[in-house]
């Protein structure tokens, strides 16, 4: 306990010294998020200073081992760091699919060589990854995917199409599900890693209802994927034809991330802020809206406690392995409700699509973006299917 108290004090002092004031404000939009990668630029000096300090300290990935770019924090220490960062509203120094998805999968399934190379690249924000899972004919029923990799000896020749690939046009590398055995549904998929600059890879951005286009159609036309990137560093994670295990493990982490279980804006109450907005406009919250906000805040604060319990249990190996599915279902439905209420509280002002006052229509664009929360990473309906089968053990296919 005393050690943890010391750690808390040290952490507080370190954050005080290293987290610039500009980085202690809630993330308002995409530009406030630093994703890293070859094409990345910093929005301002504060963002860079904060990022550099965290890389140096291993705090872009605090719980990863030191040799892979982390700080090697224990579960209890990582929780303290999270709490102290939340207390000052510190932004994440680096966000990436590498941190949330590929990293955990590599820690579990990767070879030493893969960990040394890829985890360090992720921790230092050098390589930005994207996720090649979904295909036009395979969304919820992901295992039916068809993108095929033909064995050519020292490499695979990959052809096919992915869709909804978030940030494919900005990413440097892709982790990609490729069928390597057409006769075997579950045990015929290989989890491959390759460079998006490889010949034969093209991306085509798709415009979303929010007017932004963060995801793409991704085409592979006879892309050559090496079977090895050097000593102890194969081109696939896990064994060939056993990529489904890796894919599912990774989805657990993706769901946990989307669920917002780690806290931040996804679990906070909003009633008081909506009241202040209403006052600024010279008005009052409608009484029934205020009542809905209060009921929402009850659910949001209760969910925040669930997030804390979920992480505590997971770190202690106590939680049900399918629990991330429950968290994702609740967290994303809650976030959609949050933005519906924010739109109502904001009134017609929230409808402005381009105005400077709304920073280019943030309220409505963010509201529309949240509709994807219960689709991406597995839909709410699929989450409920998993909970009823794996946790409640209900019968049937």
């Amino acid at each position, binding site marked *: 306990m005393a050690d943890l108290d010391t750690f808390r004090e040290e952490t507080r002092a370190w954050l005080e010294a290293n987290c610039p004031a500009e980085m202690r404000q809630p993330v308002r939009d995409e530009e406030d998020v630093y994703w890293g990668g070859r094409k990345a630029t910093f929005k301002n000096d504060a963002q860079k200073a904060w990022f550099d300090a965290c890389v140096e300290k291993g705090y872009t990935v605090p719980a990863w081992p030191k040799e892979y770019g982390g700080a090697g924090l224990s579960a209890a220490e990582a929780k303290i760091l999270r709490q102290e960062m939340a207390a000052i509203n510190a932004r994440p120094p680096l966000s990436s699919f590498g941190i949330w998805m590929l990293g955990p999968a590599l820690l579990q399934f990767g070879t030493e060589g893969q960990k040394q190379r890829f985890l360090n690249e992720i921790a230092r924000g050098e390589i930005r990854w994207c996720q090649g899972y979904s295909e036009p004919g395979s969304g919820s029923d992901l295992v039916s995917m068809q993108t095929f990799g033909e064995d050519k000896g020292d490499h695979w020749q990959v052809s096919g199409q992915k869709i909804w690939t978030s940030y494919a046009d900005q990413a440097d590398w892709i982790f990609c599900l490729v069928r390597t055995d057409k006769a075997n549904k579950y045990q015929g998929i290989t989890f491959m890693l390759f460079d998006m600059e490889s010949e034969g890879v093209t991306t085509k951005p798709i415009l979303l209802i929010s007017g932004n286009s963060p995801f793409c159609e991704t085409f592979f036309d006879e892309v050559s994927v090496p079977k090895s990137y050097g000593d102890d560093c194969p081109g696939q994670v896990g064994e060939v034809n056993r990529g489904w295990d890796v894919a599912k493990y990774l989805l657990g982490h993706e769901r946990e991330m989307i669920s917002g279980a780690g806290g931040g804006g996804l679990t906070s*109450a909003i*009633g*008081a802020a*909506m*009241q202040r907005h209403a006052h600024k406009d010279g008005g009052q*919250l409608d009484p029934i809206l*205020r*009542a809905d*906000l*209060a*009921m929402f*805040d*009850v*659910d949001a*604060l*209760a*969910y925040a*406690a*669930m997030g*804390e*319990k*979920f992480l*505590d*249990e997971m770190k*202690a190996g*106590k939680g049900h392995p399918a629990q991330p599915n*429950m968290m994702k*279902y*609740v967290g994303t439905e809650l976030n959609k409700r949050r933005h519906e209420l924010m739109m109502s509280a904001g009134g017609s002002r929230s409808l402005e699509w381009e105005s400077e006052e709304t920073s280019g229509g943030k309220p409505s664009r963010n509201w529309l973006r949240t509709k994807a929360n219960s689709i991406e990473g597995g839909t709410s*309906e699929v*989450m*409920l*299917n998993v*909970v*009823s*089968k794996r*946790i*409640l*053990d*209900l*019968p*049937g296919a």
Partner: protein
Amino acid sequence: MPLYHDEDQAMLADSAAQFMSEEGAIAKQLRHWRDTGCKDGFGHDLWKQFAEMGFTGILVGEDDGGMGMGNVEAGIVLEQIGRNLTPSPFLTSSVMAATALNNGSAELRGRYVPGLLSGDSVFAVAIDEGAKHRPEQIATKAEKSGNGFKLSGQKDFVIHGASADMIVVAARTSGADNDADGITLFAVPKDATGLDQEAVKLVDSSVATHMKLDGVELDGDAVIGEVDGGREVLNKVLNAGRIGAAAEGCGVAGGAMDMTVDYLKQRKQFGKLIGEFQALQHRAAHLYSEVEIARAVTIKAGQLLDGGSEQADLMVSVAKAKVAKAAGLAVKEGVQMHGGIGMTDEYDIGLYMKRDRALQEFLGDAYYHAERVAQLSGY
């Protein structure tokens, strides 16, 4: 502190679970006392057994011979009470009255705590003066009289009031009905002259009273805490009672849910187990989520309360409201998914529905606590 039970707490949970499912089982207690028309609605023998287990003194300080534990531990016992619908005066006596006494004089504790520890005494708490929980409004008067006080007024829905040896009564020693200040808590013995109680049986087979205080004379040493300073103690009693009721509600929710999920795996219609129908699967999975969250926030609020956090008031109300919604969902879905037999008295699922309804109302329903969440959050 992690949000799961440590080793000692897990042991307590195991022994409480075993005890309640054996000794406190529905057929043995709730149905038995209901069907024999018991005036208390619970069994005194079981209350003695609670004492032998050490449960009755769970919140009583070790110096006074109790276990000196916190609201999280009391909640562990209450969750098992809820799961088995075990009728007992635990919540009013060992949680609420005990919290009041912990803030009272050594003299008062000496008078009442031994009976609680041995299971010989039952206590009740009289706060509300109407059909809804409104502790902000207390009109019952306590006027100075000799070296003591004279209490006049009316209290309603005093749970276990008629069975209680002592009733903690919140009365006004100064100020207007809505004032926060000017409240004093009194330990009123059951045989005090001028105290008149009319018992009413409630939907869950528990018994409450409408209480008339007609110039009830009390000595000065019946005061719990400070004269005019009772609001602070009252808030502690309320917090303990509310998080306790929330914990019991988690048990009710869990019990109803488990019964229902089991039923989905047994009942066949259309040539299939009804648990195969996705329409029911999704609702069951949603219910599971809500119940898990209710349990999480109940532990969280209990920890904050035990740790003396300034967030405790807010989170206790969040927990009480969330549990009310989750448990309400559990019993409603429970009856519905049982089909026709869910409507029968023979089946236990309806008993869960009744207990939930009473617990929802007790110390403030979801609407009351959501309003409180808004106010405490500043809107």
